[in-house]
């Protein structure tokens, strides 16, 4: 009987944790800013992105032709942009400034010029 009570308490605690987690996710998801970015030889669109410090953001990348990359060293974020899918990068900007990004998967003759900037404001 004691064992049954313990089990009920554990299940209850787990259920409560799940609810709290789902609740937190919902709150975060509601606040998230979603920005859709297309990548193709040899440009991003948009290539200038403005974000707010501390506001969660999802960058949704779609490649229109081949494998590209996204690397923003100043914010410490990168990902491969593979064609045929939405490539989502979720992060929270933690500093103010203008941060260049570039394609870091070699994509052809204009690869070196495939660049953009993220500006994070207060």
């Amino acid at each position, binding site marked *: 009987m004691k064992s049954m009570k313990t089990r009920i308490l554990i299940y209850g605690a787990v259920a409560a944790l799940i609810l709290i987690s789902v609740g937190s996710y919902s709150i975060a998801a509601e606040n998230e800013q979603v920005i859709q970015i297309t990548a193709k*030889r040899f440009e991003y669109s948009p290539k200038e992105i403005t974000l707010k410090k501390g506001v969660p953001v999802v960058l949704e990348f779609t490649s229109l032709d081949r494998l590209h*990359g996204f690397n923003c*060293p100043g914010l410490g974020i990168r990902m491969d942009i593979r064609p045929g899918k939405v490539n989502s990068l979720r992060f929270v900007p933690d500093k103010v400034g203008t941060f260049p990004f570039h394609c*870091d998967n*070699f*994509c*052809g*003759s204009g690869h070196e010029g495939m660049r953009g900037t993220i500006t994070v404001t207060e």
Partner: protein
Amino acid sequence: MKVDRRDFLKLAGIGTVVFSSGLGQLSNLANAASGKDDFFFVQLSDTHWGFANPAVNADSAGTLKKAVEAVNNLKIQPDFIMFTGDLTHVTDDDKDRRTRMSQFKDIVSALKVKNIRFMPGEHDAGLDEGAAFKEFFGKTHYTFDHKGVHFIVLDNVSDPTSTIGKDQLEWLSADLKKQKKDSRIVVFTHRPLFDLYPDWDWYTRDGAKAIEMLMPYSNVTVFYGHIHQEHHKNTGHIAHHAAKGLMFPLPAPGSVPVKNPIPWDANQPYKGLGFRSAGAKVKETRYAISEFSVRGEKA
């Protein structure tokens, strides 16, 4: 200035001199040439055949030919010549890529030394996973042995994500297992295996795995290209030596916000371009590196 035998022996580090280089003070190499297995090879890199921008290289059609002539003018010819990638400049057109490779192959066929080894750079192989390169030059990764030294050519460019890849790493592991822990091993790559400056693509994403595999071997040296300048760095006991390019120099790692070719200086044509020799003193596992200008002068 042509280099005579005595000077060249000095430059190649197999003469009776003591000299220092970017590697630090090298030991006295007196009588090195008497070692029956000692030899030297020449490394040429980043020839970027097909590149055309007079503001960056006013002699883009002639630079490689001059380098070929300079190597041919060496009084003592190397045992072999290694091209460490970016033989051609990138083009998005598959047909043009093959045309450039054909032209490049024709130009370097004028080299007196016929033992020539090739490997791709991302400009050659990054868009078609090395398909055109293989048609003209064969495998993108392979090994060969020469006078007691085991040479490993690693391909870190055919995958556009700057990786060597699982399959090739397994191949490397299997090859290394055949070597003794004190075997003389030289690795050729295009990109640096270590994180020289990742923001400029001057790294290999899984290069640390290759270095980890090489670490148990006591005599490993890496020669690479890609960064268009001389650079020397050690990861533990493994020395990594980057070569100059033969089309345009690039700025020092992280020295400017954006990586762009250094413009042509009409007062100092070919500045920052060149090739190198590496004298292998096999018994002592030392490589005496000398840098040469496009015209064959000691840089």
